[in-house]
């Protein structure tokens, strides 16, 4: 008899892989089968029929869509993402380097945003409906209402131009020291933290408040425990599954928010790479980037589900 948790986890992972496969179909359909003709949109309106036919031949567009999909998928599974149309270089090495840059940026933002959001959530539960709660709530509502690129220019305007604290362009290159690198990405990290902090903090607060209604919290209060100890030791552990879920959803969001923030700060990551090649209509690069983004997003959501399965004692210790 297999432990039910293992079975659930295995099912969820299988579902994640299936979803990724289906997402690859969707990305392929989006770029290859929609009414727009790839060759036409690459060459523009001035294309002659001969150049169109040549490009179609070169791209293999005369093959049936199903054959093209499987040869693309086969390549992806072997780590071959094809060649970029714009410069003919293989995509995988360029993408790999940029993916590392993006993950570094997102990880720095996450390291700051996650603990900060949880602490602010705990504080606003402790002082709920008093001024610290209202202040935190108002500030986070404001940061949610502004899109990332505007947050980006607001911090550039104040922190880089008015006070000259941090550089407004995040230039990173190979062999750069760790400290210099952190200094260079200071502003984008601030923007990303602001972008996800509000939602994470609000959901943490809601999750803990939900638990605060329980009878055992009243017991703890009647025992005379300090309010903060009740929240941190009794309420928070029981709210961990929803909190982790929210954190993971926001990390997934972070990986998407990064697209815009990278463009604002001219940071050489995946997002910038994707946006550049969308405007150049370089379809293989767009497909590859789309697939990687979808993979990261699906992966993080998968982890969120796994954590909430594992955090549930009723599933871990079945009768």
């Amino acid at each position, binding site marked *: 008899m297999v432990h039910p948790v293992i079975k659930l986890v295995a099912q969820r992972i299988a579902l994640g892989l299936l979803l990724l496969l289906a997402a690859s179909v969707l990305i392929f359909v989006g770029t290859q089968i929609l009414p727009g003709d790839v060759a036409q949109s690459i060459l523009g309106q001035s294309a002659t029929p001969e150049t169109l036919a040549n490009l179609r031949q070169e791209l293999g567009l005369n093959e049936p869509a199903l054959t093209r999909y499987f040869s693309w998928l086969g390549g992806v599974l072997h780590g071959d993402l094809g060649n970029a149309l714009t410069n003919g270089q293989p995509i995988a090495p360029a993408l790999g380097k940029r993916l590392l840059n993006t993950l570094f940026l997102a990880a720095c933002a996450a390291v700051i945003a996650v603990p900060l959001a949880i602490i602010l959530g705990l504080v606003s539960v402790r002082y709920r409906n008093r001024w610290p709660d209202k202040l935190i709530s108002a500030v986070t509502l404001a940061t949610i209402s502004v899109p990332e690129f505007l947050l980006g220019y607001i911090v550039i305007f104040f922190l880089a131009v008015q006070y000259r604290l941090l550089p407004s362009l995040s230039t990173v290159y190979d062999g750069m020291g760790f400290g210099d690198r952190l200094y260079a990405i200071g502003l984008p990290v601030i923007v990303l933290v602001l972008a996800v902090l509000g939602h994470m903090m609000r959901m943490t607060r809601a999750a803990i408040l939900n638990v605060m209604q329980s009878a055992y919290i009243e017991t703890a209060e009647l025992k005379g425990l300090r309010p903060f100890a009740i929240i941190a030791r009794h309420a928070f552990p029981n709210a961990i599954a929803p909190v982790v879920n929210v954190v993971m959803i926001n990390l997934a969001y972070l990986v998407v928010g990064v697209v815009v923030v990278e463009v604002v700060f001219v940071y050489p990551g995946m997002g910038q790479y994707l946006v550049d090649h969308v405007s150049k209509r370089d379809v293989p690069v767009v497909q590859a980037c789309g697939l990687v983004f979808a993979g990261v*997003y699906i992966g993080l959501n998968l982890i969120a589900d796994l954590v909430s399965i594992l955090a549930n004692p009723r599933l871990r210790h079945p009768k």
Partner: protein
Amino acid sequence: MTRLPLAALIGLVFTGAYFAAALLAPWIAPYGMAEIVGDSWEPSSSQFWLGTDSIGRDLLSRMIWGGRTTIFIATCATLLSFGLGSILGFFAAVKGGWVDQVLSRLVDLMMSIPSLISALVVLSVMPVTIPVLILVMGILDSTRVFRLSRAVAVDIAVMDYVEAARLRGEKQGWIIFREILPNALSPLVAEMGLRFIFAVLFISTLSFLGLGVQPPMADWGGIVKENKEGIVYGIPAALIPAFAIATLAISVNLVADWVLNRTSSLKGGRGA
């Protein structure tokens, strides 16, 4: 007539003002949309209330015309996503069985890719025109409306009066439009506000990335893109659309909150 809370009143006034400015743009904008009237980045003066932009167009006029474009696209996309999402959602809830399974799994799949990424992937092969933008945004966003309306309609579909309508022999269309829709309307209207804001942010982001509204058409995201170089010289022209988007977002949120509160208190009785 119930008393209007202050927050909702503020929200209504600001939302109304933005929509009025969008509708009346040809009459209230002091200059034309792409008319070059001064030097680049002139400071604000009695002639140009907000100053001029990177190539000397009046920024206030650009903001009003841009608001018109932004609000128009966001409204169309929201209406499309609601039409598509709610009808399919109700249909899935009423039909159940494999129809529900197919539609729900398809929506799960579409939501497994972030919408900005999906939009970028599609826009890499489609021509970037306003109808295409509206279609892409509307269809991507209809997944969220589908989930909500399906969840609401599943609860309603098991009510006695729906059962009664079925036993009377009413058709599918009657059940969806005459039994379920009126009862599902209030949560959907509140959600509509949020989806509208999402659409405003989405089109602004796309335009900022250069993949949305194309110049010389103005829209708020595009105004940021055109004036971003000014930031480095301390010229805050690019921050004005920030202010407009944020105030519009907050005021629509206030209205949506009020609608939601009002309708959720209806459960207890109409006067509450």
